[in-house]
């Protein structure tokens, strides 16, 4: 794996970890207004990176820049670099469709395809790449649903409509759907914000298992969640990355007074 030099706000203390992604001076503009400004951030392989910050701080905007979702918003413009395995995904000639296959995404609200069954939801991404072989699909369904901690609950009703599942199950179905295509990175945009505490816990629990297979970047407005699930944390404020470091250090010994103010609950 290509190992570009990492400069983080906390110094090069994680040099030994391989990088999966990295942004260099990444900015996102909506029209003339910058939603994210000059963010440089490493994303370590098989680790969970949490992005925290108050509402409107640009953390979701940043996340969506990591798999070129901004391509779908006509007024959005991205500058700077986002490297995936050392290659800039914004370079000319890079196919955004290919990038999104390698960098999957789970959204705030569960969004399974309502007309499809549980099974067909999971295999929808595989069918897009032309995999039709029944054995392969069956295998992928069991593997992804198991990884998403949903297999035991739905293995007897794979043909049931996806909307018959509970909200928490639907979100895990969406995770399974994203995992089925075996992405290298999984972006999670406040994946538990629409869920009840028990569903939230089941998703948090599965993340530590998941990171063995996939690199995770999670946006959360819940600081306890970031502290519980992540290995690294980046704190965003008004479109800028204020501080980045090991979660432990960010939460116990933040270097920046603004981070400390947020962590200790003085605002946000």
């Amino acid at each position, binding site marked *: 794996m290509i190992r570009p030099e990492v400069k983080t706000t906390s110094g090069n203390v994680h040099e030994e970890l391989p990088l999966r992604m990295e942004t260099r001076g990444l900015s996102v503009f909506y029209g003339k207004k910058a939603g994210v400004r000059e963010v440089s951030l490493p994303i370590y392989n098989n680790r969970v990176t949490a992005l925290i910050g108050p509402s409107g701080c640009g953390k979701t905007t940043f996340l969506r820049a990591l798999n070129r979702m901004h391509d779908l918003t006509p007024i959005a413009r991205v500058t700077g670099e986002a490297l995936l395995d050392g290659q800039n995904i914004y370079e000319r000639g890079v196919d955004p469709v290919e990038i999104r296959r390698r960098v999957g995404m789970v959204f705030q609200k569960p969004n399974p395809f*309502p007309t499809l069954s549980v099974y067909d939801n999971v295999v929808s991404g595989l069918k897009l790449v032309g995999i039709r072989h029944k054995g392969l699909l069956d295998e992928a369904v069991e593997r992804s649903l198991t990884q998403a901690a949903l297999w035991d609950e739905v293995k007897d009703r794979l043909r049931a409509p996806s909307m018959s599942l509970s909200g928490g199950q639907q979100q895990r179905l969406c995770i399974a759907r*994203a995992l089925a295509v075996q992405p290298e990175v999984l972006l999670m945009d406040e994946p538990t914000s629409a869920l009840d505490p028990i569903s939230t816990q089941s998703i948090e629990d599965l993340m530590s298992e998941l990171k063995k297979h996939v690199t995770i970047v999670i946006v959360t407005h819940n600081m306890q969640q970031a502290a519980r699930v992540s290995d690294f944390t980046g704190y965003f404020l008004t479109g800028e990355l204020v501080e980045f470091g090991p979660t432990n250090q960010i939460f116990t010994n933040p270097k920046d007074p603004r981070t400390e103010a947020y962590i200790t609950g003085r605002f946000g």
Partner: protein
Amino acid sequence: MQAPLARLKRPSALYRMLGDRVFVVVVTLLALGIVALSLGLGYYLYLGGAQAIERFGFWGFLTGTTWDPALKEEFGAWPYLVGTLLTSFCALFLSLFPAIAAAIYAAEYAPKWLVGIINYLVDLMAAVPSVVYGIWGIFVLAPFLRENLFLPAYLWTAEHAPGILPYLGNPSGYGFFTAVVILASMIIPYTTALARDAISLVPQAQREAAYALGATRWEVMRLAMLPYARGGILAGVILALGRALGETMAVAMVIGNTNIMLKLLGIPLLYPLFGPATTMPSVIALEFKEAVTDIHLSSLIALGFYLFLVAFVVNLLASYLINVFKVGGQRA
């Protein structure tokens, strides 16, 4: 300084209670009026057609193939019923693909400035009176089809497969196929408008779900948008079918108005593809003013009654299908 709420002059409790009652009564009466209107329409059509229905029987009139106002005074709805259903469903079939394609283009692909123009023209097409379509059909479409499709096809068939010439019929330009094309172009705006709206209403989250899986634009359409919008698209299709079933003027102007059918397995089931045909609305419109005998008039009204029943059944089926197909119980 703001006046305390308690000191503001408020309408009395009696006034508010009465206002509420009056409002409920007014809306209830108006709603019931619509029910009464549709039931009354059906009832009076039945009364008007009762003479014919009694004389020929409910099924007898429906399946009767003779329409002879002059000599035998015998009437049957079958050729008209078949003509109506055949032209409508063929038109629906012909219009479906272009309409949905236009809807997809307007909802997803077209640049913003073009969307406005397309939407305006689609709405305009729906508002053009059918007699205008009819004139266009007589003077432009029929001659065009005759020269470029009917005659070449007829001549080729005459040479290579004369056996099926009866199925093609007289290639005059005024007949079944021309009526179908006119009908299709009249109903395209209905399907397009409803399908377009249904596609635009698909939540952004559904689109993004497909994009995030690495879907291309067309794959997003196929995987997320069209399945989600299928209820609305179906509603547009049914509305278009309803319009086609009842369309009168434009069809009457180009269809040739002849009730001579072709037999299939001994049953009169078809009209020649190019040759003249007829429909229920067009025969009502054309013969109403010259129906001098009671039984002729009653038969025409009975045709109207059967058309009413057809529309009723189609709509019933439609609301059932839409319920089955729509995406229900969605989170926003």
